[in-house]
């Protein structure tokens, strides 16, 4: 296609053009002023003057003929394909995602004369989409629980370059944004910025027969020991008949069966019902709660009958139980440190008198003593504590033995335990071969004397030197420690337990005997400290060198590690993207400064199973974050325990769901798609009506351009000269010279 046009001033600067026009107009005005009272032959003066002006102008501007050769290109059309996890839902035996991708492919063919750009959207960011690749495999990192069309359209409107002539949205319509309640005015505002119609393609219009957990809402922060209300909305769609749907909330814990927190029944009125469950999470940190329903017969999507929520449980204050068998300077130091910390709610019980003591009074009213409420503490109140410190207390004498199974279960359920040494601690207190021994990080044996009385200086192990839990102490004294008098007889550290201090002379199973060891048992952590002299870090000539700060540094670390304070972990673990059951998942490990060595990972499923589902190790990896492939995991809660070098392991619990929030409402929403199309001037079609979508007109684009002067420059100049001569002659005849 070729177009011809006349150009008055080809290649002449704009300023010159305006100057010429200005001079011409001035001259014309002056001529009109001169001839205002003359008649007859004055018209020849005017005509010759105008002609002269035109020819002089043409001599300066040199008009040309411009020939343009152009091409017709197809209009730009953007096809937005919903890439949220919700599109993994089945529909008529196929995955909605596959239907959407096939629709996108068909649209490319339908708009074959246009330039079609395929983009995927989910949480807002637009990604280029290649249908063949997307059909071949699903990239979990590109899937999102969100289906945010609003952000996708905003992103599209802000892209530089040519605006699309039409947009086609392929989805089931159940967007997170714009919501179903958004009015037409705000929908119109959303589409105005694009200046193009939005056509919509509904991948499905038929709701499946499905009962599901539509939403779970909580009110307020999740604080340990405090009741938390879960408002659970249950939905029934696709004609499924639901009357009463039982709902259960259970906490997933490591090494034990899930613990039932609450249960209820949702009574359906219409398509939805709401049930409120009150749960109390006793342990702080990341806690996984599984909420499940028992659907009626005929439910076609079982994956959305269960949700696994991760609660980040905080503490109002750390609630500690400190029980000591007798008052000593060691008890004093620990109590004073615990009481000095405003974030600790301390409940303390010290045995101040035994039955053999002679108080020289028979009147209880003269004594400020209360009975040791051992039964009450270790039954009714035990779950309310974040950690228990048993300091040199005899389990036999003080009737703790019968509560040790509960205390062991408390630790496995997520509680913390520190056993502090002394003559009545560990084997000396009757704990050997008791249920509590199983949750301690060391074995207790029992055949040897329960303690030794020799002075010694504990030795840091390699793990102790690199453990963040002791960093505060090593920063003050490097690897120097005070002399302790005597040590409890401890057995070897259990598998997966870490010894931080060891005895320089005593042996346990042919290894140096642990003095300070950390361990995990089920969901909880425990610490064994086989000396009763850490008060020497608070008050002694040694302590004086650091003004007594070493004691706080040690116990800050021990209690912090027990409570999973990230400051005392050698690693930070997080999921790289969502964990979707059946799809490959990745774990990102970020090593803290100072952590070095091989990295090992053990992945265990939360629940009674103790066998790891995955173990991995990376030999001396390069600095920086490290990503480890976990493979395709099944639905459930998982606990990843990773270790760097000899440092104590760090634990990270996470959930892997098949559906998650994206599958909570399986019903498509073709009405919303229709409204979006209507307000933007587009059309809403189903998969079978793709051919009905209008194809925008093509755009003409110039490809080649040439200009040819109408006359050579000398001809314009000659003509202008002759005209000026004629004008001079006419003026002379009129007596205007």
């Amino acid at each position: 296609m070729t177009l011809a046009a006349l150009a008055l001033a080809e290649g002449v600067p704009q300023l010159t053009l305006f100057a010429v026009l200005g001079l011409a107009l001035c001259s014309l005005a002056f001529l009109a002023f001169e001839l205002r009272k003359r008649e007859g032959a004055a018209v020849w003066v005017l005509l010759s003057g105008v002609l002269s002006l035109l020819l002089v102008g043409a001599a300066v501007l040199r008009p040309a003929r411009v020939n343009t050769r152009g091409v017709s290109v197809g209009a730009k059309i953007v096809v937005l394909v919903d890439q949220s996890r919700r599109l993994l839902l089945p529909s008529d035996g196929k995955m909605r995602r596959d239907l959407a991708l096939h629709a996108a492919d068909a649209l490319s063919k339908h708009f074959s004369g246009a330039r079609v750009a395929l983009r995927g959207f989910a949480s807002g960011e637009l990604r280029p989409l290649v249908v063949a690749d997307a059909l071949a495999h699903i990239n979990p990192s590109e899937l999102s629980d969100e289906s945010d069309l609003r952000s996708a359209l905003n992103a599209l409107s802000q892209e530089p370059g040519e605006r699309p002539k039409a947009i086609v949205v392929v989805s089931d319509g159940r967007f997170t944004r714009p919501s179903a309640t958004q009015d037409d005015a705000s929908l119109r505002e959303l589409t105005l910025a694009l200046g193009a119609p939005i056509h919509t393609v509904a991948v499905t219009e038929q709701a499946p027969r499905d009962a599901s957990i539509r939403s779970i809402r909580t009110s307020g922060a999740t604080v340990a020991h405090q009741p938390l209300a879960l408002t659970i909305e249950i939905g029934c769609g696709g004609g499924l008949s639901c009357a009463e749907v039982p709902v259960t909330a259970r906490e997933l814990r490591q090494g034990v069966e899930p613990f039932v927190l609450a249960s209820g029944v949702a009574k359906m009125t219409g398509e939805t019902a709401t049930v409120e469950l009150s749960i109390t999470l006793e342990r702080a940190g990341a806690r996984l709660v599984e909420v499940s329903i028992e659907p009626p017969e005929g439910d076609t999507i079982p994956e959305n009958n269960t949700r696994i929520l991760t609660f980040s449980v905080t503490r109002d204050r750390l609630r500690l139980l400190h029980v000591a068998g007798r008052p000593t300077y060691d008890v004093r130091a620990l109590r004073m440190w615990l009481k000095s910390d405003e974030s600790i709610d301390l409940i303390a019980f010290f045995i101040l008198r035994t039955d053999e003591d002679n108080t020289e009074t028979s009147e209880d009213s003269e004594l400020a003593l209360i009975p040791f409420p051992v039964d009450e503490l270790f039954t009714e109140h035990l779950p309310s504590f974040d950690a228990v410190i048993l300091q040199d207390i005899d389990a036999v004498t003080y009737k703790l033995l019968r509560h040790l199974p509960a205390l062991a279960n408390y630790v496995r359920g997520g509680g913390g335990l520190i056993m502090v040494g002394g003559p009545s601690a560990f084997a000396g207190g009757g704990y050997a071969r008791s249920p509590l021994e199983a949750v301690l990080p060391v074995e207790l044996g029992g055949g040897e004397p329960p303690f030794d009385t020799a002075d010694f200086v504990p030795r840091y192990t390699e793990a102790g030197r690199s453990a963040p839990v002791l960093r505060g102490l090593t920063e003050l004294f490097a690897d120097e420690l005070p002399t302790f008098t005597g040590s409890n007889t401890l057995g070897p550290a259990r598998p997966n337990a870490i010894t931080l201090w060891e005895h320089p002379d005593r042996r346990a199973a042919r290894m140096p005997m642990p003095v300070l060891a950390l361990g995990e048992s089920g969901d909880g952590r425990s610490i064994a400290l086989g000396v009763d002299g850490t008060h020497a870090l608070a008050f002694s000539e040694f302590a004086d060198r650091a003004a007594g700060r070493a004691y706080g540094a040690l116990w800050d670390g021990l209690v912090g590690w027990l409570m999973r304070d990230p400051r005392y972990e050698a690693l930070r673990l997080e999921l790289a993207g969502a964990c979707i059951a059946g799809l490959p998942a990745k774990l990102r490990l970020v090593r803290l400064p100072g952590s070095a060595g091989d990295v090992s990972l053990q992945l265990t499923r939360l629940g009674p199973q103790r066998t790891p589902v995955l173990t991995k190790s990376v030999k001396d990896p390069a600095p920086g974050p490290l990503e480890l492939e976990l493979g395709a995991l099944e639905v459930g809660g998982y606990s990843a325990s990773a270790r760097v070098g000899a440092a104590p392991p760090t634990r990270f619990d996470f959930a892997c769901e098949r559906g998650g929030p994206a599958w909570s409402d399986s019903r498509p929403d073709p009405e919303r798609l229709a409204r979006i199309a209507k307000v933007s001037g587009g059309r809403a079609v189903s998969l079978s009506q793709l051919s009905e979508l209008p194809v925008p007109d093509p755009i003409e684009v110039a490809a080649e351009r040439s200009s040819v002067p109408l006359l050579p420059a000398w001809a314009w100049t000659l003509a202008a000269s002759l005209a000026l001569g004629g004008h001079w002659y006419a003026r002379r005849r009129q007596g205007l010279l």
Partner: protein
Amino acid sequence: MVSRFTRRVALTVPLSLWSTGAFAFGDGGAFHPRLLRAGNHPPLGVRTSGAGRWSWELVRRTSAPARLVPAEVAADQSSLQAEPFVIWAGDADPGPLSSAEVRGLTRFLRLGGVLVVDDSNPASGAFGRGARRELSRVLPESAPVRLDSGHVLFKTFYIVDRPVGRVLGPPELSAIVRGKNAQVIFLQHDLLGALARSGEGFALETEPGGLEQREHAVRLAVNIAMYVLCSDYKDDQVHAPFLMRRRARQKP
């Protein structure tokens, strides 16, 4: 089990001996009333034995372990910082403390140690006044205050109405309180005098006298020891209702 065994062994050991064998493990944490040497330090005489008796009474009456042999420590020795408790007793003005002694006591108190100032001659009060004067150099920012009858010192083990020692003395205690802790406790009751032994009996008669006064002096000593070992444990909320009921029973 072991603790009972070791405590019983301790009770059988003559006061003049260290209870080394039985109390070795945990010995470092046992109550130990050390006698402070500071300023002009005339010999305490029989009152020196009062420290051992203090430990003996503590072990006999409570579950707390204690070291039975008294020890002396100088204010300018670094070993002052070895343990958190020391008694400064005397019957005359101690005179000015040397700079090294002031530094030693400052470090002791800044680490959180507890110092009992026991005036052996409350009638003259010269020691008490002198000790206060010198301690104002050690802790110039902290003045002694009177401890009210609700202070934890009066309920750490026994419910004590008023302090008494060899002499009846004033019905209250005063102390330098730092943070929440009474760190320097001033006694004008000659507590060591009430505990001092001579042979099989007590070395000094109580004034105005009587077994009951000595018993109350021992109870005060036990309470002070328990305060050193447990700090404000009996101020915990869990004890409050019990103690209120018992006080009510004591004072019908």
